[in-house]
C-alpha cells in the first residue's frame, strides 16, 4: 500500500458506505415524516410555544444524561411491562421534537410518557424544586435556580409551589416558578405518546391505564 491515490480513495470510499447507510438513508427515509391523521386531529400534536421553549430548558440543563425518551419493544425489553409506555416508540413519535432526546442512560426513569404518569403540574414543580420532597432517596439534582423564593404579598400567589419539610421556604415566603420552569413543565406535559399510530398499535388492549407504578415518578 504505497500508492497515495489508492489509499486515499479506499479510505474515503469505505467510509462513504456508512455515511450513506447511517446518515443519508435515515435522513431521506425518516427526515420528512408527517403526522398521522387521527379521530381528533393529527398525532403527534404540535407543541405550544411554551413547550418549545421548555425543550430548550430541558437541553440546557442536560436532563437527557439521566433520562431516556424511548420505549423499546416488548420482544426485546421489559420497558412496556414496567409501565413506561403502552407501545414501542416509533420514528413518527419524534417528528415534533427539535432535537429528539432518545438518551443513553436511565439513571432516572424514562420520560417518554411522563405526562401520562404524572399529569399534575404542581407535582412537577415540587419535583424540580426539590426532588426528595416527592421522591425520597432521589439522586436527581435540585433545579432551585428555575424558581424564585420571595416574600408573600397580600395573599399567597395562585402559582406558589407547595413545599413542606426541611426544604420549605421561610415563613412569610413562597416559592414561585420562573418563566423557564413554566416552559419546562409545559414541555414535560407534552411527553405522552400513548396514541395509536398505524405502524405502532399497542400490543394488547390496555388492561389498566398507565398509572404511576408503585408510587414512582
Amino acid at each position, binding site marked *: 500500500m504505497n500508492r497515495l491515490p489508492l489509499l486515499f480513495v479506499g479510505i474515503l470510499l469505505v*467510509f462513504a458506505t456508512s455515511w450513506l447507510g447511517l446518515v443519508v438513508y435515515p435522513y431521506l427515509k425518516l427526515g420528512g415524516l408527517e403526522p398521522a391523521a387521527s379521530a381528533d386531529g393529527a398525532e403527534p400534536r404540535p407543541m405550544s410555544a411554551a413547550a418549545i421553549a421548555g425543550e430548550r430548558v430541558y437541553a440546557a440543563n442536560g436532563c437527557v444524561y439521566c433520562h431516556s425518551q424511548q420505549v423499546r419493544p416488548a420482544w426485546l425489553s421489559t420497558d412496556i411491562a414496567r409501565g413506561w409506555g403502552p407501545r414501542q416508540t416509533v420514528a413518527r413519535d419524534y417528528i415534533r421534537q427539535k*432535537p429528539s432526546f432518545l438518551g443513553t442512560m436511565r439513571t432516572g426513569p424514562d420520560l417518554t410518557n411522563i405526562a401520562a404518569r404524572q399529569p399534575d403540574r404542581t407535582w412537577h414543580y415540587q419535583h424540580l424544586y426539590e426532588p426528595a420532597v416527592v421522591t425520597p432517596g432521589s439522586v436527581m439534582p435540585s433545579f432551585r435556580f428555575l424558581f424564585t423564593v420571595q416574600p408573600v404579598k397580600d395573599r399567597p400567589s395562585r402559582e406558589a409551589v407547595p413545599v413542606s419539610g426541611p426544604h420549605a421556604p421561610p415563613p412569610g415566603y413562597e416559592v414561585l416558578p420562573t418563566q423557564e420552569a413554566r416552559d419546562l413543565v409545559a414541555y414535560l406535559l407534552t411527553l405522552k405518546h400513548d396514541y395509536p399510530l398505524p405502524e405502532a398499535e399497542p400490543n394488547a388492549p390496555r388492561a389498566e391505564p398507565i398509572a404511576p407504578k408503585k408510587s414512582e415518578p
Partner: protein
Amino acid sequence: MSELLRSLDPNTPPDPQSAVERAEIDRSLRGPVLFFFGSAIAWLLLGSVLGMLAALKMTHVRLLDGQDWLTFGRVRPAHLNIVIYGWASAVGIGVGIWLMGRLCRVVPRHRGLLIAAGAVWNLGVLAGTIGILAGQSRSIEWLEFPGWATPVLFASFALIGTWTVIMFRFRRPGHVYVSQWYLLAAFLWFPWLYATANVLLIWQPVQGSVVGAVNWWYGHNVLGLWFTPIGLASAYYMIPKVIGRPIHSYYLSILGFWSLALFYSWNGMHHLIGGPFPAWMISASVVASVMMFIPVLTVAINHHLTMRGHFEYLKWSPTLRFTVLGAMTYTLVSLQGSLMAIPSVNALFHFTDHTVGHAHLGLYGFFTMTMFGAMYYIVPRLVGWEWPSARMIRWHFWLAASGIALMAGALTLGGFLQGLELNDPDSPFMNSVNIARPFRHAREIGGLLLTIAHFVFAALFLRMVLRRGPRQDEATLFSPRLPAA
C-alpha cells in the same frame, strides 16, 4: 527486514545523515507539538476535576447544589467535551503530526500556522465549554458545544488536517508504514464526521429521530475512526521502536486496517438498539460490531507476536509499558463492546453505568494510555532533555493504571446489577439507584487516583519543558537496566 539486517551488519557505515534529518524534523515540529501537548495536559487537569465533580454529584446530591452553572446536567457534558476535544483530540493531533513528520521524513513548512491553528482550537474548546456551563448546550451527546463555537474548531482542524495530508503528499520515496495509513485515514475521516454532524445536528437540524442516528454515527466514529486509528498508529510505531524489531506481519496490518475501516464505521446504531429506526440499520450495526472481532484480534495477534520474547522490556521502558497496557486494553474493551452490542445483552445493560465504564475503558484505558506512552517517547526528542524522575513516572503509571481499573471495574459490575434491577418489571425503580450507589463511590476513588496521576504527569511535563533536573545521557527508565548476562 533488510533494513534491520543492514543495520546489524558491522560493515554498514553509520548513517549520520538520517540522524541529522531526524533532528531537523524534531526541531521543526517542536513548537507545534509541544503546544498541543501542553494545552492538552491543561485541559486534562480541568476535565479530571469536572469529571470528579460530576461523579461526586451522583452520590452527594447536595454538593454545590442548586446552581445553574454547576448543575450535573452541565458539568457532565463539560467534562466530556473537554476530555474529547481539549485533551484527547489535541494530544492525538500532537502525536499524529510528529509521527507523520518522522515517518514521511519531511520538515513541515510554515509551522507558525500549525501553532496558530492549535491556539484557535483551544479558543474553540474554551468558548464551547463556557457555552455549555452557561446553558447553551443542545444536549446532543459529544456535540454539546454551541453552534457558534464549533465552526472555530472545524476551521482549526481543516488547517491541521491539510498539513498532515501535505506532509504525506511530499513524503520521501519509500515504503509507507502502517502508522501512516491510520494517520492519513484519521485526519481525513474526522473533518468529514465533524462537518456532517455539525450541518445536520446544529446548523440545519434534522427532524425527530434522525438526530439519534446521525448523533451516534458521529459519536461512535469519533471514537472508532479518529481516536482509535491515532492510538493504533502510535502503538504500531512505539512497540517496534522500543524493542528494536519490526512488526511481525505486514499482511495482518493490512487486514487489520481495512477491516477496521469497514466495520467500525458501521457501529453507531448499536447505541440505539430497540430505538425508533428501521430494523436493518440496527441489525447492520450489530453485525458490524460483532465483526469488530476481526480487526481487533488481527491487531492483537500482530502486536503480541511482535512483542513475543521481549516482554521484559516492560520492566524498563515507560513508553512501552503505557503503550502495551493501552494496546491490551484495546483488545479487551473492543471485545467487550462487541458483546455489549448483542441485542439481548444490550437490552439488559445499555442504559446503565456499565456503558459509562466501557466508555472510560476505551477512551482512557486504551487511548489515553497510548498517548501517555507516546509522549514519554516524543517529548525528550523535542526538548533535548531526559525525563527528570523515574519515581514520578512510576507514580504516574500505577496511579493511572489502578485508577482506571477501579473505575471501569466498579462501573462495569455496578451497571450489571443496575441493569438486572431495571429489567425486572416488579422491582421498584429506586432499587436500581440504590444498588448502583456503592459502585459509584468506588468510581469516585478511581477518579481521584486518575486526577492525582494527571497532576503528577503535568508536574513532570512542566519540569521537562523547563529542562529541570539532572542532565542525563541515557533515557530515563523505570529501573536501571541490567547488563545482558
